[in-house]
């Protein structure tokens, strides 16, 4: 189960819509072990592609070091699909390298109806999970 605030969910959706038709990507960091997404970190898609994303390697180093300094970890890793469903592709599964993270997929294939879903990807296995947005 992913528990995420209205505000953070909205930020992910806004990023995905703004970058459409390129895939958008980013991280939400939270305190190590808390499973709480707290700090929104949109990342550059170094591929700038409508079908592939990759974090810029030096930006990734900077962000990972910063999380380490703050005792944080990547709680959510998100990206968008711009013409297909919000479900992890074979490519997404083969590159998933943070077994503790919630992988959020957004689809912007229909402009005014973005889809927002969350998954765990561990050892090549995908499990969808509920997204809970507590009332403010």
């Amino acid at each position, binding site marked *: 189960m992913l528990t995420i605030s209205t505000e953070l969910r909205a930020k992910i959706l806004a990023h995905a819509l703004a970058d459409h038709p390129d895939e958008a*990507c980013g991280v939400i960091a939270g305190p190590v072990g808390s499973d709480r997404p707290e700090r929104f970190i949109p990342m550059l898609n170094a591929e700038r592609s409508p079908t592939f994303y990759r*974090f810029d390697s*030096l930006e*990734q180093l900077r962000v990972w070091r910063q999380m380490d300094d703050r005792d944080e970890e990547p709680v959510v890793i998100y990206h968008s699909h711009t013409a297909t469903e919000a479900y992890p592709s074979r490519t997404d599964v083969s590159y998933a390298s*943070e077994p503790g993270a919630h992988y959020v997929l957004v689809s912007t294939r229909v402009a005014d109806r973005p889809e927002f879903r969350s998954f765990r990807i561990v050892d090549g296995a995908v499990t969808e999970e509920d997204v809970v947005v507590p009332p403010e």
Partner: protein
Amino acid sequence: MAIEVRIPTILRSYTGGAKSVEGSGSTLGELIADLDGRYDGLGERLVDDSGLRRFINVYLNDEDVRFIGGLSAPVTDGDTVTVLPAVAGGAALP
């Protein structure tokens, strides 16, 4: 000679859970071979027939080694090498 190598979560099964290990060598390639000698299988996760694996980022201090010679980048005592699997994916194949 001691070069600190920081290991990402998914590769810690090769190092008995250690987040940081030490190695020696005068180039990144030698350092990786040194580590592979002690942490069996780690080398193959970092290097393939054509050199450093494409979706593994290796940094020497603050630089991405792709831009400073890859496996032939010189390393020296006091350096820190950081390994981070690339965060990537998408609807299609890269």
